[in-house]
């Protein structure tokens, strides 16, 4: 196949960027999207030009490193598929493809198609865990977990932290990402003691990072390569509201009312 690409090039976060046209004359339908970019890059290097920078690592759709806006769609046209697992058979000869980085204030561009997603790490650090230090755990079978709960928790835990939900959201909200972790731990007995702290902490951090709020567009679940549903956002809201009430009661009790 012969394709025309328009790729976002931006030397660094401090400089401005633009779309640059490249021809990809010899693309096999069995190539992955990133392999197609590899071939373009080999050509650029041989011509003495700077290759296109993009994040990628496992190329199996699980590490969450890769993520490109392809013709305006996060991770491209194939539903439930990360960029690295998108194959060129999803395109046809003669197509023009626009390739851009995730666009969100909380994900500043580092270079070309590479963005800084460290805000996600800080949201996790604000409560996305169970406080259990190594060595203090009871036997693995001490607390039974109903299979439906464990299965549902796994659905949420499947999030790969790629950021497509943010990129797809008109508000650049990180609600789907945050709710997936809150929901995963909310369903398990191990997550109960810190359930409220977690919801409050993670939401507060999400706002502090400059992500927008959720206004229920649903673009996030369409873009999610792991099929994570917006139902999780409802679960997050439920914990957030309960936590807000509990917190008010606790601070009232502390104040001696």
């Amino acid at each position, binding site marked *: 196949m012969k394709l025309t690409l328009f790729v976002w090039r931006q*030397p*660094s976060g401090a400089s401005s960027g633009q779309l640059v046209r490249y021809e990809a004359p010899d693309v*096999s339908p*069995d*190539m*992955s999207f*990133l*392999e197609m970019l*590899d071939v373009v890059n*080999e050509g*650029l*290097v*041989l011509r*003495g*030009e*700077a*290759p296109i*920078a993009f994040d990628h*690592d*496992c*190329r*199996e*759709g*699980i*590490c*969450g*490193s890769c993520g490109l806006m392809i013709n305006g769609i996060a991770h491209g046209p194939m539903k*439930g*598929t990360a960029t690295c697992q998108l*194959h060129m058979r999803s395109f046809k000869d003669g197509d023009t493809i626009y390739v851009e980085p995730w666009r969100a204030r909380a994900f500043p561009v580092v*270079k070309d198609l590479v963005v800084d*997603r*460290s805000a*996600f*790490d800080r949201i*996790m*650090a*604000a409560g*996305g865990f*169970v406080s*259990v*230090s*190594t*060595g*203090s*755990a*009871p*036997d*693995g*079978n001490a*607390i*039974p977990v109903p*299979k439906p709960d*464990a299965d549902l*928790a*796994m659905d949420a*835990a*499947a999030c*790969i932290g790629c950021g497509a939900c943010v990129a797809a959201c008109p508000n650049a909200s990180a609600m789907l990402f945050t709710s997936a972790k809150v929901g995963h731990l909310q369903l398990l007995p*191990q997550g109960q003691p810190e359930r409220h702290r977690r919801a409050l902490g993670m939401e507060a951090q999400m706002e502090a990072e400059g992500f927008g709020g959720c206004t229920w567009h649903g673009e996030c679940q369409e873009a999610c390569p792991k099929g994570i549903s917006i139902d999780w956002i409802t679960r997050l809201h439920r914990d957030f509201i309960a936590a807000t009430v509990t917190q008010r009661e606790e601070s009232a009790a502390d104040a001696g009312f």
Partner: protein
Amino acid sequence: MKLDAKIPDGPVAEKWDRHKFEMKLVNPANKRKYSVIVVGSGLAGGAAAATLGELGYRVTCLCFQDSPRRAHSIAAQGGINAAKNYQNDGDSIWRLFYDTVKGGDFRAREANVYRLAQVSVNIIDQCVAQGVPFAREYGGLLANRSFGGAQVSRTFYARGQTGQQLLLGCYQALERQVAAGTVTMRPRTEMLDLVLVDGVARGVVTRDLVTGKIESLAADAVLLATGGYGNVFYLSTNAKGSNVTATYRAYKRGAAFGNPCYTQIHPTCIPVSGDYQSKLTLMSESLRNDGRVWVPKTAGDRRAPHEIPEAERDYYLERKYPSYGNLCPRDIASRAAKEVCDEGRGVGPSGLGVYLDFADAIGRVGEQQVRERYGNLFEMYQRITDENPYRVPMRIFPAVHYTMGGLWVDYNLMSTIPGLHVLGEANFSDHGANRLGASALMQGLADGYFVIPATIGHYLASTPLPKVDTGHPAFRAAEAEVTATTRRLLSIGGRRTVDSFHRELGKLMWENCGMARDAAGLKGNLQRIPELRAEFWENVNVPGSDAELNQALEKAGRVADFLEFGELMCRDALEREESCGGHFRVEHQTEDGEARRDDERFCHVSAWEYQGPDRAPVLHREPLTFENVHLSTRSYK
């Protein structure tokens, strides 16, 4: 160099407990006075960094990815072994120990393996408490599945994403420590050298991958948890960024490299489709629980699989290894696949493939059950190949997957450089010449959660560690070397890309140091690799500058190291004149093509000591003794 494994005295089952009691402790209030650098944030590094942070040490953890959650442990699919015996099917610590020693073809250290089996049960407890959503039965208790090389069900799993869930558990523990201020996380940072002061590891030199800044970090101990070197083959199931640089540069600073030739070729990967191929994708070994492996009985049979009647199919694993069948260990399954393809019975466009067929399983338990067990793997297969494995058998072929070799460590996980500890796949210690499925996650977490937190305290408490900072001349010298190498790479301006060298090296390694090795091929590589390396340093083209995000430069540094390391692997493979586990020397096989070990001459660990550029490394041997599992010929028939 003297190799002292420091294996504690006493019966194997008591060594670890006794050692834990005998080791020195660091008083809780003193722990914050010690600083530790952890390189790598996968299961081993992430677990170590989180646990050392919890204990109160001052930890700095580096990873080259943009977040610690991306480390390649995340891609492990099938499961993690533990000797819980929840299934009441005869499992025990002793049996896991026995299976692992035997599975490793008697080339691992008994004491280490026993400890691994012991702490395996604590790992599961810890992960469950973190909220890892393991698969469960309807009664709410943990489910298990079977894996290769074992006749019990001891593998815990979270769908086909066990590595992901264990790593996220570990990452969450790590982020908790970041929030607590005990761990400083430095993502997009690559270690480019190890710094020794008075012969002791006291820090690292790093490159900030965004700004290009070369910087030093000083500490009281350095932990490498940087994974394996499978990408020396270019095509492997490893992530694109996985590399040998950290361990190889430590080797050049004096850490012995153990058994570099031991490579695991995984039997169930998606076959190569073209020259542009950038990596290979694993299909979990767990698929062999229900999938049946076969090829046509007749060479050159090009009919579609459904047109080949039952009587004309050869279920060769079931035929050759009736007691383990499709669940025989990885090295054996891979070689058997190579054999049938060499006979011209391979399937698919390239003839380099065998069928993994689920028709019987779907007939037995229904498509829904199969979907529940392997749904995500089937989807991944379909996405890559455009074939529906519920209808057409999968095509699979072996691919490089894991490396059992690594930096030599003693029982305390310390290398031959005092203060430099090595964890997880980066060390050589527990899997011998072949790793059993679902044991890599177990080892990474064992080292990180349970072994190093105990042994590092002993090292710190019993070693005089004068105050050292990055102003020390050793740091300045290492920074200057790193900067000079970087500038040299950028100044060559040749006519070949880094990837073209990497692909050529990979092809040499796969053909002559892959599934089957012989003296002629290895000697050819020992001649050809230095020539390729010389060409690299004259003709590679690395564009851009050293003061920016420069992915070509990152790759170039890694490939430069692979070009040296590949030679070390071939040297080790040539020297080991026997077949054992994943190391198959064509000259050493039985009449029916099975590996023939030579315990008289090779029942040892080969540890190589660097001697400087253009000088052959020196081989040291650590003899292996088997007091509990008696040396025998491995049989899965």
